[in-house]
């Protein structure tokens, strides 16, 4: 088991390297760089641009170096000094900006993941066991609605409902008075009051698809001979189902972490803009628009790493859950 984990960790190194290269190439792809977009913005505003100053900045930032030299400087900075570069737009080190935002992103994503599991597991089991019953049809109906509604519509609707009928202050993750307040119980409650909207919005689509997956898997498993064996032992039906087929049908559930996590993180962007959440999405968008390359690159790199970590966690959990995987 330990060997397996170590092996997986070692495999992650080349993958991460590849991700960093792709991330860097992506942010270099659009024509021009931060300075050209800065110049165009300044001329639009009628400001004077001094060509000498521009050339000087170009030299300082190293924009004239070939791309691989720039990449090398960037990646060695990250690896040796933990220095993700400097955000031109915010005039602050990238790492400062990122850590601020990553915390909020992660907590929203994790909460959404837990929501997805908590809702889809019981409903999926119910749907599979009482297939074609009224309850199953209702769950299926809402499942498809959840899949079909774009996140931002759902976000707007929920905001409207909670503002109009629940009288809540919506948008963001904290009320104004708590933002700089020290951690307290009241702050936590306030966080929860804000968190449920993004969690529901982001989690709905994932919940719907996981219900469908669990229903299909469990339906297959329910007719397997080992289920009859368990019944013939004298186990009551709910125990039979929970202990045997559900256990096996859980496999795709666990591997879902691998694809739900990146989905959640990237899916957050539009929702986060609509809901004004202090997560990574909006910041990444701005960085891409203004070609703030180190900020954007670092974000892409971090999200890639998170996806890898999600995959790793799901694989380890799978191995724990299913001895057939563990032994091969």
């Amino acid at each position: 088991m330990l060997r397996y984990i170590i092996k997986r960790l070692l495999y992650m190194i080349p993958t991460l390297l590849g991700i960093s290269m792709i991330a860097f190439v992506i942010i270099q792809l659009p024509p021009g760089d931060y300075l050209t977009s800065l110049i165009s913005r300044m001329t639009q505003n009628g400001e004077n641009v001094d060509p000498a100053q521009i050339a000087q900045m170009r030299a300082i930032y190293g924009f004239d170096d070939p791309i691989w030299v720039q990449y090398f400087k960037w990646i060695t900075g990250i690896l040796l000094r933990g220095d993700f570069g400097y955000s031109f737009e915010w005039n602050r080190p990238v790492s400062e900006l990122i850590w601020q935002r990553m915390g909020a992103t992660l907590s929203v994503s994790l909460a959404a993941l837990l929501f997805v599991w908590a809702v889809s597991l019981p409903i999926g089991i119910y749907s599979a066991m009482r297939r074609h019953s009224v309850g199953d049809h209702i769950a299926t109906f809402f499942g498809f609605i959840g899949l079909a509604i774009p996140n931002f519509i759902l976000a707007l609707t929920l905001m409207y409902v909670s503002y109009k009928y629940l009288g809540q202050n919506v948008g963001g993750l904290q009320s104004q008075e708590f933002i700089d307040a020290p951690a307290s119980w009241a702050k936590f409650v306030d966080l929860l009051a804000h968190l449920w909207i993004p969690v529901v919005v982001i989690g709905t689509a994932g919940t719907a698809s996981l219900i469908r997956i669990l229903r299909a898997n469990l339906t297959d498993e329910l007719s397997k001979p080992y289920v009859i064996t368990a019944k013939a032992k004298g186990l009551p039906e709910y125990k039979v189902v929970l202990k045997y087929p559900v256990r096996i049908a859980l496999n795709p559930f666990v591997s879902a972490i691998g694809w739900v996590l990146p989905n959640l993180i990237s899916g957050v962007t539009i929702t986060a803009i609509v809901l004004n959440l202090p997560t990574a999405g909006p910041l990444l968008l701005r960085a891409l628009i203004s070609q703030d390359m180190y900020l954007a690159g670092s974000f892409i790199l971090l999200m890639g790493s998170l996806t890898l970590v999600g995959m790793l966690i799901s694989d380890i959990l799978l191995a724990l859950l299913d001895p057939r995987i563990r032994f091969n």
Partner: protein
Amino acid sequence: MQAVTDHLTHATDDAAEIVMSVEHLSLDFHLRTNVLHAVRDVSFVLRRGQTLCLVGESGSGKSVTARALLRILDKNGTITNGKILLRGKEDEIDIAPLTERSKELLHIRGGRVGLIFQEPMSSLSPVHTIGSQIIEAVLLHRAMSKKEAREEAIELLRQVEIPNPDKMIDRYTFEFSGGMRQRAMIAMALAADPEILIADEPTTALDVTTQAEILDLIRRLQVSRGMAMLLITHDMGVVAEVADAVAVMHFGRIVEQGGVEDIFHNAKHPYTKRLLASTVKLEQSHLERDEAAAPEKAEPVLQVRNLTKVYGSATGWLGKSTFALKAVDDVSFDLMPGENLGIVGESGSGKTTLGRLILRTVEPTSGAVAYHDADGQEKQVTELDQAGMREFHRDVRLIFQDPFASLNPRMTVRQIVADPMIVSGTHRGKALEQRVAELLELVGLDPLTMERYPHAFSGGQRQRIGIARALALDPRVIIADEATAALDVSIRAQILDLLLDIQKRLQLSFIFISHDISVVRYFCDRVAVMHRGKIVELGDAEQICTAPVEAYTKSLISAVPNPDPRHKRMMHRTRFTAQG
């Protein structure tokens, strides 16, 4: 009806006490368009210490009956009539009206009636240890602590003769062989010391030798515990070996029941007679062939020389050779024109691999296969290029085991049979259609059915379609890999006769791969016995089946159940102790 009650009253003069009596049981299944009366008015009794065999072909309702005794039915099935009276140690109780969730039913399941069934590979959960599944059964029905239950589970594993039970208890099912899993299943069914054991085709998926061991084991456990047993099987040989009483089921009804002697030697119902006839028929060779022994001068069609296949012998990174398995080890034989060569052996003996090596769908590690084509030219199969292989595959064809999986469900019968001819471009248009009709007629199917899809055909009919497809390109050699294993006995005999008939007309040679000795004996002229990749004995079919020379062949032959209760062969069989 009258006859059944007669038998019931007649049977009561047996001394043994009745533990379960099933009276006029009927089961219905509500299908989408109609109601299927799966079981109709079935009555029988189970006696302490005795075995009742429920015999019938697939679809006769025997498995459904067995599961109904525990009320394990699919959602669309209902008991419409009848009683299932359980007596024995406790008060008499009728199982039929119990509800799915009642405590009484859960107590009976596993507690008083144990169930084992066919698929040893899938009837245990793959993600729980053997031990945890047995301990669960123990804890459900007996007041024990977890530690005591574990001791008990180890003891049970010891009783079913699993070596090192204290270690094996923590293993997973995929670390067990088929026979071992069936033993573990038995241990689980016996966990609460039930009064009745229902065994639904417990040995069908196992090799003959393993089957003999398992039946042996069940028999001994039954005697020592005084259990009543309901054994469901389609194999009359097994019935003759273990039954005290027999009930024959056909289309959901019991058409005849009685003592094992009566059924085998004094059968009254025409269906029983037919069933016995097709079983006994397979016990001998198709005699007339012996006269027409292959002419001496003929050249063999296939010459297999020192064929070897080694799996997993790749050398590791550090240069040391990893685990290597010789699936086929230095096999040589000749196949004459018009000859049927049988290859028998247990699962894992390499017989299927051998078939694939000859076809070169699996590349041999070493050795040679020489093929003499219709013009008498010799070709080294192992050296053929792609075009040569295509030609070779036109002459040497394969019939598969599973008539359900080997036909594409989205192609019509015409497309399936025509496929090889389209691929090789031999026929087209009108001629193609004619040829397909001809082939279907040859295998005894109505050419008018060629526009239908495979699902409209029964297992036997599908196998005929598969044979028609194999014959499409006028092959000279057919390799049949367990071609009749998935079929019922009566249909099995039909298919074998069909193959023999076709052979007479078309000058074919067969390589017939099977684990079923009786089929090989009926069909083949010569038999090669394989064990661990080697041919241990090769000789005339009659000689191998009646007077084997090698120790392994002896043990294999003596493990085959004999469909005659007066000559039980299996119980005093020779055992082959592997030499390493």
